[in-house]
């Protein structure tokens, strides 16, 4: 026992010496990860401290969980939590099925040229930057000169100030996102659909199944593992919704329905005239922890109920 363990270590050591160049290669990336990913995690201790610029992160005095309690009791807590969860869930429920439907339709069509053209055009919006995307939204929805209100006027409806009315915010955010990403989202499903065994289609056809039935009983089960994996991935990310886009879409009129946890972190720290770095760190940590717990538990559930999981 002892001896075999020892020889195991010796074997590993020999292999490491043989492969020393691999470690030399990976050194720089590891250094980057330590400095730019793990060092900020060390900085998370700020959440339990009262940050004094002169004392630095390590020297500042401990305050325990005061910042968390302050956040839970603040009048903003429920607003930002509700907005975060609501916008995320809406995005997931409305946005998740569409790429699947589009991919099934693309896969089914007999017109190859049309398939390629639709793919080409629907992928394009994915490459529009967030800033340009929000700029487009603002132009299109402008109450006076925007094309959407012009079209509403043509059919006799009153102009709507979409960006100024809190009730519209989530719809504008979610549906502009759907416009931008649905086409790109089909790629992964199209790859899965290409892997569906053609014999199954042939057998189904012989048994008298029409194309719609083959989608239901051949295509859909064929891509089910992909669907489940992506659903896990997406539901684990509920707390980390697009900060950058929401931030650009915010204005004083819609802030009540557009302030989410991560934008609130920015608002009380770097954007504030009396910045509270510790408080902001605590709120951010709260968000990341929920996110971590979510993705781990969703993965556990998936592991228990089926054979699909992320790790």
């Amino acid at each position, binding site marked *: 026992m002892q001896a075999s363990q020892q020889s195991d270590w010796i074997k590993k050591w020999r*292999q*490491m010496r043989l*492969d020393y*160049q*691999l*470690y030399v*290669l*990976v050194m*720089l*990336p590891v250094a980057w*990860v330590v400095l*730019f*990913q793990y*060092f*900020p*995690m*060390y*900085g998370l201790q*700020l959440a339990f401290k009262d940050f004094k610029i002169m004392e630095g992160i390590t020297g500042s005095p401990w305050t325990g969980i005061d910042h968390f309690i302050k956040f839970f009791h603040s009048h903003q807590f429920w607003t930002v939590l509700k907005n975060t969860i609501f916008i995320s869930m809406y995005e997931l429920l409305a946005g998740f099925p569409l790429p699947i439907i*589009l991919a099934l*339709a*693309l896969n*089914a*069509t007999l017109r190859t040229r*049309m398939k390629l*053209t*639709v793919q*080409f*055009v629907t992928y*394009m*919006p994915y*490459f529009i*930057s*967030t*800033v*340009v995307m929000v*700029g*487009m939204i603002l*132009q*299109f929805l402008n109450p006076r*000169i925007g*094309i959407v209100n*012009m079209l509403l006027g043509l059919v006799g409806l009153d102009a709507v100030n979409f960006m100024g009315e809190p009730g519209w915010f989530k719809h504008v955010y979610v549906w502009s996102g759907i416009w931008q990403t*649905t086409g790109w989202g089909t*790629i992964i499903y199209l*790859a899965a659909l290409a892997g569906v065994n053609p014999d199954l289609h042939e057998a189904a056809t012989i048994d008298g199944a*029409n*194309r*719609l039935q083959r989608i239901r009983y051949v295509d859909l089960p064929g891509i089910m593992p992909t669907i489940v994996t992506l659903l896990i991935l997406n539901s684990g990310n509920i707390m980390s919704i697009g900060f*950058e886009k929401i931030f*650009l879409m915010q204005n004083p009129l819609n802030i009540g329905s557009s302030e989410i946890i991560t934008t609130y972190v920015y608002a009380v720290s*770097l954007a504030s005239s009396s910045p509270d770095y510790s408080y*902001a*760190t605590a709120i*951010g*940590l709260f968000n*990341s922890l929920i*996110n971590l717990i979510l*993705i*781990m538990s969703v993965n556990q559930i998936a592991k228990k109920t089926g054979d699909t999981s992320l790790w």
Partner: protein
Amino acid sequence: MKDTKVRLTRSDKTFYWVNDLFLIVAFLLVLYPLVYIISASLSDRVAVISGKVFLWPVDFSLEGYVAVFKDPRIMIGYGNTLFYTAAGTLINVVLTILAAYPLSRKTMVGRNVIMYIFAFTMLFHGGLIPNYLLIKNLGMIDTRWAMLLPAALSIWNVIIARTFYQTTISQELYEAAAMDGCSHFRFMWSIVLPLSKAITAVMVLFYGVFHWNSYFNAFLYLKSPDLFPLQIVLRDILVQNEIDPAIVTDAQQMQVKQGLAELLKYSIIIVASLPIWLVYPFVQKHFVKGVMIGSIKG
């Protein structure tokens, strides 16, 4: 597939008809906003502001584009973005390959530990403030480094590249080379890189688009206008509505001024997105390939 085309049943005929109609609707819904922006940018400012543009340019004019090239902020931003994209992508690709190749070698002792250390950062990170303080303590605020180093590596791309190496470069190939006295350095340089041009291209594209489009690091870390990338200038113009008064000086009436400002917005959207859209048709298949490799569990 061919014989289904020859004799379609009645229900299948209906299905294909509805299916194709659905695809056409989806196609038009995505296309229309893009066409509208191009048309608006090529229209006369009066037509834009009075809502005459619906599909095609009305009273064709290039005034908006002339205004874009008159704004010095836009030109400086364009130059800066070119630099950040080129330098940033170079750093990204080098670091990604340096990480992905060793981690793709199954004999490497401890590779799972390193992989775990890398992958954990995708699930959990320090967040806004600790990151900001780090950049500040490193003295990188308001320097070009703040645009290059914090985003120097994407773990997701490391995983994609590693999956690619694992599936295309076999252990036997390395062993054969090692038998002839080939070191890892040499093997990587003269065998892995030439054999994996496809994945390198994918990396260049993914990182390149990321740098071209990103604004948030610049927004957080940069203060001097002469360092601003294009996206920050775009934000000022499109979102904050800050139009350079010099561009609209020759326009006297308020309405004309506003018309030009709106026209400028459409034109700048096109100018900023054009480089990517020009390259896109030629590289679409590489992007798709990248997404598909990413979907294989490594």
